[in-house]
């Protein structure tokens, strides 16, 4: 149990998915204007990453390995993730409308979020067992949520600031992310 918690903490804080591995940068920069939309995106990412790593884990060890088809990993994973996101969207729309209303707009954006494919592949590459895979998937997604909410908070606060013109918008967001990345290196000694 301790090992699982350590894995989750490590992927969430020490090797933060956005700030130290640069996965999922597009939604990180794109959907971080307001804290509540950022939190929605983060929640949707947690949801999709958990489901997709469960499914890709099952497919890899129950279908690809017995058939000696490990080399199809990349192709199968990306197709599974794309199909899964569609499926989740449809199921939510039909059966859990409030959740769909909260997460719906973010779901199509997640297919191209490299963090989802990245977690699925790195779980396999690291040879994690099922529980550890889930712990690292949750940690990664939670790290994404933390990072995007903090960035959204910073952007909300600094919106009215007098920033030199060329630095307004994207450059300032990137500098804020860089400073956050420096802050997150402080977690290095944690584990």
């Amino acid at each position, binding site marked *: 149990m301790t090992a699982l918690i350590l894995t989750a903490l490590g992927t969430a804080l020490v090797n933060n998915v956005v*700030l*130290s*591995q*640069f*996965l*999922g*940068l*597009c*939604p990180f*920069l*794109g*959907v*971080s*204007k*307001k804290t509540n*939309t950022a939190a929605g995106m983060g929640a949707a990412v947690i949801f999709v990453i958990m489901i997709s790593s469960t499914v890709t884990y099952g497919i890899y060890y129950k279908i690809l390995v017995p058939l000696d088809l490990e*080399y*199809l*990993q*990349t*192709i199968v994973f*990306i*197709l599974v993730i*794309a199909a899964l996101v569609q499926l989740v969207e449809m199921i939510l729309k039909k059966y859990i409308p409030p959740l769909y209303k909260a997460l719906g*707009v973010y779901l*199509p*954006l997640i297919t*191209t*979020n*490299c963090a989802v*494919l*990245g977690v699925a*592949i*790195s779980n396999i*590459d690291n040879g994690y067992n099922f529980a550890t895979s889930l712990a690292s998937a949750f940690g990664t997604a939670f790290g994404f949520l933390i990072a995007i909410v903090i960035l959204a908070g910073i952007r909300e606060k600094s919106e009215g600031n007098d920033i030199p*013109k*060329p*630095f*307004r*918008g*994207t*450059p*300032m*967001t*990137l*500098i804020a*992310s*860089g*400073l956050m*990345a*420096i802050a997150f*290196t402080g977690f290095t000694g944690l584990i």
Partner: protein
Amino acid sequence: MNSCLKQLYNGIIKENPTFVLILGMCPTLAVTSSLFNGAGMGLSTMVVLVMSNMVISLLRKIIPNGVRVPAFIVIVASFVTILQFLLQAYMPALNDALGIYIPLIVVNCIILGRAESFASKNPVLPSIFDGLGMGLGFTLALSILGAFREIIGAGTILGINIPGWDGITIFVMAPGAFFVLAALVATQNYIRLSAGKKPRKTCADGCTGCSGCDTSINNENAKEEN
């Protein structure tokens, strides 16, 4: 032949995927800690881009419109898998340095973006040159960023020490990547502002899809924000 040269120019200068379109940010920031890694990532992406553009252009009349994107993804993923095994066999050093970012070429917006906006509508030869131009533009951009970060951050170039300069380590670490890109976009904005144009709209200004500026998604988002 002229139109092919125009495609090359277009990809390298006029619509440079990194500096102008600001696409494919994840590998751009992640692997540019040295010139070798940056150039290696750029060339790998170029190979996949040229091959996938060629095949998609050949199959553009056969692929039904409804399953267009999944078909493109399968084609791109096949070439990425081939590339991954070639690198593992012949360039293990590069393979280790790039690690997980090789399979992630599949979700690089540049490749799907070009498939969608160019290769699926144009004949084979221009598509190949479009892939070549965009790929070279990407390689050039990653090499410049990689060289810059290696010189400033590690005080070396291609692993050779620069005498009298120790480097500022933060620039080869993760935060440095953000700062270098911020400086780059700000410089571009400065040039555009002093030329009397508006600053460039990028990913962070509301376009959220990694596959470029997908209008339908943008509209939905706009509605959501209103």
